[in-house]
Every structure is written in C-alpha cells, then in structure tokens.
C-alpha cells in the first residue's frame, strides 16, 4: 500500500478531534467500545459487548464507508474520513452488519445479556 503514514496519522488526529462532537450526550467517548474501519475492513470483525452498550464506529480510511445492519435495524450516514457513528445495542443477540458502499466489508456485534 502506498498510502503514507502521515495521512494515516492525520486521519487519526481528525477522529480524535471530531468524535466527541458526534457522540450522543449519554456516551463516553473514551470508554465506548470501538470498531475502527481501516483498509476496507472492520476491526475487530466481531466485537462482543453487554446489552445496553453504545458502540462507536470510526472511519480511518481515506474513502467514505457506511455501516448498515443486515436486518436494517441500524444504519449510519456516510462516514467520511474521521467521522464516527454511535449505536446502542439494547437487545442481546448477534448483529451482523456490512458497508452500504462496499458490501463485501462485513462485521458482527455479539451482544450478551
């Protein structure tokens, strides 16, 4: 990959600066479990959380991505570089999701009771 590490650092800096603004007031930016979107993949691909947890998805790529639940139960706006999206998983179960722009990108939130 020829993307420079400088652009990667810059993208991360933008995430750090912008995320708190986009989080709901009840969220705790620093504590919230995160799914990072990098190199067209969700990291971690499976994230396990307890019911009631707010998960933050953050886009660290130079291209927008869009988080959509397979069952359509949640859907972000297009996330540009550095943008975040927060969703609270109130019910237990496995929630598979994908990127609405690049549907080969897939991930899962496993919500325990």
């Amino acid at each position: 990959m020829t993307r420079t590490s400088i652009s990667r650092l810059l993208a991360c800096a933008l995430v750090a600066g912008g995320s708190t603004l986009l989080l709901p007031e009840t969220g705790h930016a620093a504590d919230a479990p995160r799914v990072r979107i990098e190199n067209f993949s969700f990291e971690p691909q499976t994230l396990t959380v307890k019911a009631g947890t707010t998960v933050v998805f953050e886009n660290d790529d130079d291209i927008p991505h869009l988080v959509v639940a397979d069952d359509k139960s949640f859907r972000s706006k297009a996330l540009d570089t550095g943008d975040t999206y927060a969703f609270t998983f109130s019910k237990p179960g496995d929630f598979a999701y994908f990127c609405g722009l690049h549907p080969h990108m897939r991930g899962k939130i496993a919500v325990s009771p």
Partner: protein
Amino acid sequence: MTQHHDDGEGISRRHALECMIWAGTGVLWTVSGGVPVSLNLLGAAEAAEAQASGFTFLQISDSHIGFDKAANPHAIDTLKEAIGKVKALPAKPAFMIHTGDITHLSKAAQFDNADQIIGGTGLDVHYVPGEHDVIDEGNGRAYIERYGKNAKGAGWYSFDQNGVHFVGLVNVVNLRAGGLGNLGAEQLAWLADDLRAVSASTPIVVFAHIPLWTVYADWGWGTEDSTQALALLKRFGSVTVLNGHIHQIMQKVEGNITFHTARSTAFPQPAPGTAPAPGPMTVPAGQLRSLLGITDVAVRNGGQELAIIDSRLSDA
C-alpha cells in the same frame, strides 16, 4: 496513450478470447486457448479515419469532486485539466458519458462544481451514478433530481445516436450484505424490454459505474447479477461495455462483448491484489497525472467496430 482495436469478426471466430490492458505498464495481451497472442493496435491514421467517417464520444469517470486527501488534494483541478483535454480534442465528440462518482460525498456544492466544470465543454453529458453519488440524506434523491429527469428507477435509461444504441445502467443502489454491485430485477426487466425492439446488427454500448464483469471479487469489483444482463446482450453482433469505479484501465473481450474500464480524473487505485485493500493510492509527486485520464471512443459509420483510445492527463 493506450489504444485497442476490437476486430469484431476476428474475435467472434475465436473461442473464449480475453485481452487486458494494465494501466501504467502499457502491456496489451490476449489469451486464446491458453496461448497469449498480441492484438492489432489501432494506428493513429486509422483512428483519424474512424473519426472522419463516423463519430466519437468521450468517457470520463470517477471525478470525485470534494476529494482532498493525500492521493490528490486537488481533485477539482485534475477534473479541470481533463476537461481542458476534451476541449482540445481535434475531433469534437458528439457527446460525453460520465460513468459515476461525479462527487465524493453527494453534496450539492460538489455536484454544482462538477456541473460547472464539465459544462465548460458545451457537450451533452449522459450520467450514471457511482456509489459516492447516492449517499445524500435521501439515498440518491439528490442525484435523481439533478440527472434523472428522463430516467427510470434509480437512474437507468437508453438513447440512440447515429445508429448506435446506448444504455446507461445503475448498479450502485440496494447493495446486499456480502454482495457486489447490483442491477436488480426491476432494472433487468426494463433492459429486456428496452432491447426487444433493437435489431441484432445494431451496435450496443452499455455503460455503468461498477464493472459488469468480475474484475476482482475480493474487492467488490464486479456486479452480482451482471450475467443476466449479459445474457440479454448475447444476440447482438457488437457490444461495448464501459465502466469506471476501479480507477484504472482494464479490458477484456469475450465473444461479442468488449469490456473496458476508464481511468479516474481524481486518484488512482491499486491493481487487483497488489495492496491490502482498494482505495486512494498515493504515488510519488509527478506520477499522478500519468495515472489519470480520459477515454475517447470512435464509432465508424456502418461498421461494428469501436476504437477505444485512452489518454493520460500527462500526455502532451
């Protein structure tokens, strides 16, 4: 400059012939029965003759207005350069097609900027959306309101020019988890209906954003239900499929169908499998314009063959 000459008759006699042009290397190769063979390149004189006796149209793609990251902080300037090249063409194209990703984020100001720059050619422009053009709040409403007045569904349509039937398809909406680009049942039914009245000897040009053949499934570079569209195109003597999305030239000939993808005017992407992921590729300063460009297509009167001529922004 990369040129490719599609000799329709020669190709139909061969079985499962494939050819590809890889951007940057200038290598043209074909495989016939497993043996690589070289194809005739269209000479400059032939190209000029084609232009004199037929018409040309111009393809631009992936202008990504609004993109400002390291791979090209000034995507707006490289679109202006591309349009400058269009204006300077010795033979004025009959019209332009834009194969999507006009904008980076579907914002009104980005569409406005693109329209203003592309409008500078004074040419009619036929658009199809890329996935970056349908991420407004209304999931594509902004695109349809601007470009879809005479289109069906998410923006598909057809038109005729000098005996050639052109079809613009949309394969960037209602994408399915784990899937590739998607045309959908409604559009396929429309396509079957649209082609019904077209004679088999009519040259067909189909254009859409995501390639209508599987270039690289791991990166989503293909359209899951394209085989159904291609089946509808089998009975025609000459079919040319023009796509964008992958920001590099790739070509394949299969039977009566020539597939070709255009360069972006904004930023290059890696060749399939050569990087951990697709996406904007930052190249050393001075190389960017050799990886961006436009595509000129020449149609000869009464002929089945189309000449596809790619030129780089860095070409004099």
